[in-house]
C-alpha cells in the first residue's frame, strides 16, 4: 500500500476572493479506494478537481502542491496536462447522460478518446473499443447506441469503460451512483472493486453518502467547510476517537435494519463559503465545544492511519 499515486499537499483553492478550501492534504495509494465524504459546499469536488487542475476561472489555486505519479501537476504546461488527463488520471462523473454527447454514439466517444491520445490505427481502436465494452459487461452493439438509448446503470458503465480506456493510475469517481437505484448502485460498486482488483488503479470516491463508504472504501476522508477534519480506515470511523462531526454525521443516518438507536440530526447549519474562522468551523454546532476550539485545529495523528483535527480527540498524544 506504499505505492502513493496521488499526494495532495496543503491545497488551497479560492473562487475569486472567497477562499473555499483552506489547506487540504491527502494521499492515495495504488489499489485502494479513498472515500471523500462531505455535505454540499464542504469542498469535496473543489478539492479533487482543484488538485487535478480541472477547475477554470474564477477558481484559483492559492497554495499547496499536488504530486501525481511522481510529477508535480503545478509544473505542467497545458500540453503536459492534456497528456496526463485520461492517460494517468480519469474522472467518472455523477451523471453520465450530461457527460456524454447526445449527438454521438458510444463508439464515437471511445474512438475520439483513443484518437486524441495517439492511437492512430483504426483496427486497433475498434478492438480496444470492444474490449472496453466487454470490461463492463456491455455487448459490442452498445457502441452503435446513442446515450439516451441506454439505462442509467448502462450509461454509468459506459462512463467507467471510458475512464479506464487508457489504463490510468488514478480514477476519480464523483458521486457516480447518486442518481442510481440501490440495486444498480450495488452492481456498479461491485464492478469498480472487481476492476480495481484486476487493474490495480488508485481510486478516489466522492460522495455525500457516508454509509456507502463504510463498506466500500478502504480509507475515508471527511470534509467540513473546506477542511479535512478526519482521515481514517473505514472500520475506525465513528468510534470514540472520531471527530465530533463524523460522529454526528453517522448519528444522523436513519438506523440500519436491526440497529437499535434513533437518528439525531446535527443541530445548526454549515457555514457558508467564505465564512471562515481560524478555529474549528464545526464548533458552533458541536456539543463538546470549548474555548480551545477557537484555536486552529490541525490534523493530528492518532495512529499511522488515523488523523483527526480536534483537540478533544487528538490533543494529548504522548
Amino acid at each position: 500500500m506504499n505505492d502513493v499515486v496521488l499526494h495532495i499537499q496543503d491545497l488551497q483553492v479560492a473562487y475569486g476572493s472567497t477562499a473555499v478550501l483552506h489547506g487540504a492534504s491527502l494521499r492515495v495509494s495504488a489499489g485502494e479506494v479513498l472515500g471523500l465524504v462531505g455535505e454540499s459546499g464542504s469542498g469535496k469536488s473543489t478539492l479533487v478537481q482543484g488538485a487535478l487542475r480541472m477547475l477554470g476561472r474564477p477558481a484559483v489555486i492559492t497554495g499547496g502542491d499536488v504530486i501525481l505519479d511522481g510529477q508535480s501537476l503545478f509544473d505542467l504546461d497545458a500540453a503536459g496536462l492534456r497528456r496526463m488527463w485520461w492517460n494517468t488520471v480519469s474522472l467518472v462523473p455523477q451523471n453520465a447522460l450530461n457527460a456524454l454527447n447526445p449527438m454521438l454514439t458510444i463508439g464515437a466517444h471511445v474512438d475520439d478518446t483513443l484518437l486524441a491520445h495517439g492511437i492512430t490505427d483504426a483496427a486497433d481502436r475498434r478492438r480496444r473499443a470492444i474490449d472496453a465494452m466487454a470490461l463492463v459487461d456491455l455487448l459490442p452493439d452498445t457502441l452503435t447506441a446513442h446515450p439516451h438509448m441506454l439505462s442509467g446503470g448502462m450509461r454509468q458503465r459506459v462512463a467507467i469503460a471510458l475512464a479506464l480506456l487508457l489504463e490510468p493510475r488514478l480514477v476519480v469517481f464523483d458521486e457516480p451512483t447518486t442518481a442510481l437505484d440501490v440495486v444498480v448502485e450495488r452492481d456498479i460498486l461491485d464492478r469498480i472493486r472487481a476492476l480495481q482488483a484486476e487493474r490495480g488503479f488508485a481510486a478516489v470516491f466522492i460522495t455525500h453518502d457516508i454509509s456507502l463508504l463504510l463498506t466500500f472504501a478502504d480509507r475515508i476522508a471527511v470534509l467540513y467547510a473546506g477542511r479535512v477534519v478526519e482521515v481514517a480506515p473505514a472500520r475506525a470511523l465513528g468510534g470514540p476517537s472520531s471527530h465530533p462531526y463524523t460522529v454526528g454525521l453517522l448519528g444522523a443516518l436513519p438506523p440500519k435494519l436491526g440497529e437499535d438507536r434513533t437518528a439525531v440530526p446535527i443541530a445548526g447549519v454549515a457555514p457558508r463559503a467564505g465564512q471562515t474562522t481560524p478555529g474549528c468551523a464545526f464548533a458552533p454546532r458541536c456539543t463538546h465545544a470549548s474555548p480551545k476550539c477557537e484555536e486552529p485545529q490541525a490534523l493530528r495523528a492518532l495512529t499511522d492511519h488515523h488523523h483527526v483535527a480536534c483537540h478533544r480527540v487528538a490533543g494529548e498524544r504522548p
Partner: protein
Amino acid sequence: MTAPLLRVTDLTVQFTRGGGFRPRILRAAHRVSFDLHRGEVVALVGESGSGKSTIGRVVARLLQARSGTVALDGRELPVTRHLRADKATRSRVQMIFQDPYASLNPVHTIYHHLARPLTLHGHGGTHLRSTAAALLESAGLAPGDAFLDRKPHALSGGQRQRVAIARALAPRPDVLVADEPTASLDVSVRMEVLLLLRRLLEARGLGVLLITHDLAAARWIADRIVVLYAGQVMEQGPAESVLSSPQHPYTQLLVAAAAHTSAPLPAGPGAPPVIDPPPGCPFAERCRNATTACRTGTIPDHIRPTTHAGPWVTRCLHPGS
C-alpha cells in the same frame, strides 16, 4: 368502522407511446390498492419506473388515472376525469416536491410563496402576514417573521424544504404527498425534515404519503410500507415487519441492496417491464424462484393478519422463500 382518510382502490394509470398501427402501452400503475389513516405515514417505495411518483401525482390530482378509485374520507375524487383546477381536492391534498431549489420561485419572497395559497384557499384575511409567519414557525423556521422577506436563494436546502412544507400546509390539507422530500438534502438535515413531517402529522392529524427510494428512512418514519415494482404492489404491510423479514423476493432484493454489505445480491439489476407488460408477475424475469406459473398465471395475494397497522400482503406464489 370509519372510512380511512385516503383509500386507493385498483388504481391503474397508463400512457400510450407512439401512434401508427401499433401504439405501445406504458403501464405506470396497475391495480394498486392501499389505505392511509389519519396520523399515519405510508411509504411508497420502489426503484425508478416502479410507479411510486405516478400514484402520488394521481392522489394530488396532477395526473389522470385510467381506472380505479381514490376516496378521501369515503368520498371519491374524480381521478379518472379530465384534470382541471380542482380546488376542492387541492385544498385537502397537497404535495411537497423533491427539489426545493426548483419548487420555489427564485424571484419571489417567501411571503409571496405563502400568501398566494392562503388567499386562494380563503385563509387570507387581514392577518395574512402573521398567518404566514405562523406557518413558517410550525415548519420549524423561527422567528417566522425574519424569513418572510427573504428570497429562496438566501436559504439553505433544508430551510427551503421547510418553506415548501409550510406552503403545503397553507390550504390546511388532510393529506400531504411528499415525493422524495429529502433526496436533494444533505444527510445531516434529512432526518430533521422527516421528524418535522412526523411532528406535523401528529399535531394536525394529517396523513402523509411518503414517496421514497430510501428504505432506511421509510422504515424509520413510516407506519406502513407499500413496495412497488413495474406499477404493481409486490408487498405491503407494517414497515418494521416488511423490512425486517421481507416476504417478497423483490423486497428481499431491495433490503439486501440497501444494507451495504458485501454479501451477493439475490438478483441483478434489470428494468421493470412497464411497456407492453407481460402476464404474470412482473418480477419473474429477475426472480431466482420463478416458475412457469409465475410467468403466466394471476398471482394471488398472500394475506397475513398483523396485530397492528393493518394486514401484511405479499403478491407472490412462493412468499418467504
